[in-house]
């Protein structure tokens, strides 16, 4: 067996230039794949984290159809006790109750229709990054205070600052007229214009009073330990829901169907590109191996005449390819990991990213994510296709007649 290895290795270096060029193609492709896939997955997890950390959470408890219609009367009754029960069950603070209402916010000289969240000031910072993004003033404190925090664009458009008062007008859960005067205690800046322009938060207790909620709210937001644990999370939350209620549990995918699909759409176009790259490398390997078999026709004829089975020769060719492929994987992964590692610390930015970031709630720099999957998925695919490409040159040997082969000039 050892001799076959040695033969294969020496055969490779008969034509060092050719071998390096072919391996070079693999290294190039592998490096690119490692980098691109790491970057892609880094971006996806950022997208998911960022999108879920604003308001969505890993899952929510809501009234049926609320997610689609967002009507005031589709409530979760006794929402604070429910949230407490969920906290108890999960032994986690990453649970918060919310109400949501549409209202007209008026300052002295401007009025805008905005979305108002009623939040539990004590717990909201565990499920949302908005409290942490409150850059002017402070976040909400007392659960019953007539206080409000709002987005920076909204504050600018209303011509108000921290300390000013504004009026909220809307309709209560029963359709009656609801109004309140609130004091602006903080202004947040999420970087996403749509949120900064349209959203404000008030304490849940005050929200329930103002909109005649009678203890009800609209959603309980829950964060678990990562996306993979969501099904388990759901079943544990289910056990706490009152038996006679028709409340539904929606996971992040149902709450933000666009997110997963945006990722899928992006993935499929990326995979098309990777596939083309892999195919091109396979062509290169096919070419090289076919050449290397053809130029050895005489030699092969002689050893076959001496009694070596074509199958064994075929294995030799495959072994040569495998060696070359492995070399490509090792060097490609190493080079790819180096390049990627540099970007994981320094981040990557390209022109146009700022605008994309503002639109999709992404940071202005992307950081690739290195793990076994992102490191090896691409190179292993390249390796498999390389091996496939060596089948034709290897199988060809079976059709070779030793006598004709020896006659080849």
């Amino acid at each position: 067996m050892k001799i076959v290895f040695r033969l294969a290795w020496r055969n490779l270096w008969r034509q060092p230039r050719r071998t390096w060029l072919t391996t070079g193609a693999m290294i190039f492709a592998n490096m690119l794949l490692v980098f691109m896939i790491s970057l892609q997955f880094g971006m996806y997890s950022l997208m998911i984290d960022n999108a879920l950390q604003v308001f969505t959470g890993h899952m929510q408890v809501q009234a049926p159809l609320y997610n689609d219609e967002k009507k005031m009367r589709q409530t979760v009754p006794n929402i604070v006790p429910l949230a407490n029960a969920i906290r108890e069950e999960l032994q986690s603070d990453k649970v918060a109750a919310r109400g949501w209402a549409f209202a007209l916010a008026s300052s002295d000289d401007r009025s805008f229709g905005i979305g108002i969240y009623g939040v539990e000031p004590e717990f909201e910072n565990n499920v949302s990054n908005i409290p942490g993004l409150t850059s002017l003033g402070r976040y909400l404190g007392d659960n019953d205070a007539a206080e409000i925090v709002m987005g920076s664009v909204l504050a600018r458009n209303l011509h108000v600052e921290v300390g000013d008062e504004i009026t909220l007008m809307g309709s209560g859960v029963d359709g009656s007229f609801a109004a309140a005067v609130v004091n602006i205690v903080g202004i947040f800046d999420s970087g996403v214009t749509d949120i900064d322009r349209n959203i404000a938060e008030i304490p849940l207790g005050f929200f329930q009073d103002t909109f005649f909620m009678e203890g009800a709210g609209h959603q309980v937001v829950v964060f678990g330990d990562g996306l993979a644990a969501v099904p388990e999370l759901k079943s544990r939350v289910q056990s706490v829901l009152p038996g006679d209620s028709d409340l539904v549990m929606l996971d992040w995918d149902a709450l933000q169907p666009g997110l997963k699909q945006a990722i899928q759409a992006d993935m499929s176009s990326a995979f098309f590109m990777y596939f083309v790259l892999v195919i091109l490398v396979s062509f290169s390997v096919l070419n090289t191996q076919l050449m290397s078999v053809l130029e050895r026709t005489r030699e092969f004829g002689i050893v076959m005449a001496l009694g070596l089975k074509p199958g064994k020769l075929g294995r030799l060719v495959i072994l040569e390819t495998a060696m070359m492929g492995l070399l490509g994987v090792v060097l490609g992964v190493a080079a790819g990991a180096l390049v990627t590692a540099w970007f994981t610390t320094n981040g990557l930015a390209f022109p146009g990213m700022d605008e994309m970031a503002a639109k999709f709630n992404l940071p202005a720099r992307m950081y690739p994510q290195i793990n076994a999957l992102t490191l090896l998925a691409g190179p292993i695919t390249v390796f498999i296709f390389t091996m496939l490409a060596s089948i034709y040159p290897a199988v060809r040997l079976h059709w070779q007649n030793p006598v004709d082969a020896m006659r080849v000039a």
Partner: protein
Amino acid sequence: MRLLRILFRLAWRNLWRNHRRTIIMLGAIGVGVWAMIFMTALTRGMVDQMIVDSIGVLPGHVQVHHPDYQDDPSISNRMLISADDISERLDTGAVKAWASRVRVPAIITSERESRGVTLLGVDPEAEREISFFDYDEVDGRFLTDVNDKGIVIGKKLAKTLETEVGKRVVLMSQDPDNEIADRGFRVVGLYTAKTKAVEEAYAYVGRRTAQTMLRIGDATSEVVFLGDDYRNVDPIYDVAVSAVGEGLSIRPWYDIDTYLGAMLGVMDGFVLVWVVVIFLALSFGLVNTLVMAVFERVREIGLMLALGMKPGSILGQIVIESMLLITFGLAIGNALAWATVVPLESGIDVSIVGDGMEMWGMSSMLYPKLYVSDMVLASSVVLLLGFLASLSPAWRASRYEPVEAITKV
């Protein structure tokens, strides 16, 4: 000239000496070039669609506003220029369509719900060319003239408000003195848009009706101009400047929606990077093929040199061989791309990931667009870089020492 013909013939025959190698290489170049153009056509189509759709919503290639409107789109930042003033001064040469509108934030209330919307006071005739929906496909009817007393809203909004054609809604906004300006409207039509977000965003009323409700006389919020091609807005820009005069902000679309403008740049960059990456993957195989072709002909090249052929001719011969190979590969690739893209130009349905595409700002149909300029770009990059890549093996071949080369085994 005669020399060139001979070199050409030599190169051609050499190419087909090892037809397998040539065919594999042609296959590789063909696939590579196909992928370059196909992917480019797909991206172009995507971005085109995205921009056309967004311009259809954000409307117009060039927009005119009060200088402060962009930051604070309220009634205070209106323009005193009336539609009649503009039509008097407008040179309609390059302008396909134009419209002047009232556009302010408002609150729409049905018996059951309230929502924030953008109120558009329009001239239905002027908007026909600009609008993102077809008037004939509106459920019910679209507005008939500037004095129409009805309102047209999106289907999704109607569902949220639990209203329908024939029912009444109330619109509420502000007049220039910050007094509440409101008015009841009968819903006369429901429009369908490509995305739900758009269907929730805009409420159309007659321009004159809106001006009366807001107590602003002849004033408007924006004037939009539409030309033939979003890539070429300069002529319309000039027309707009002469029609509206000084003191207003006149901006092309890519200044208003910086995300779209940036995307256009990002995509142009992406196309070039993609073409170069594919070429690099190809180049390994290409150089390899040439190196082999030279290597197996060392003796023959030595002989030609000994017989008095100039080194330059050897160089030329190899380069011509390479260029022939590339040209054929390009022809195959371009033909393949054309054959695959043209049947798809009527649209690829990607509605499985429709919500995701919506998140990227795209619609659920993809319309690949084959631009001759992209084909030319890809082909010239391949030709140019291919030429450079073949110089090194050709150079080496032309530098052989004749005696050494002939005696080489």
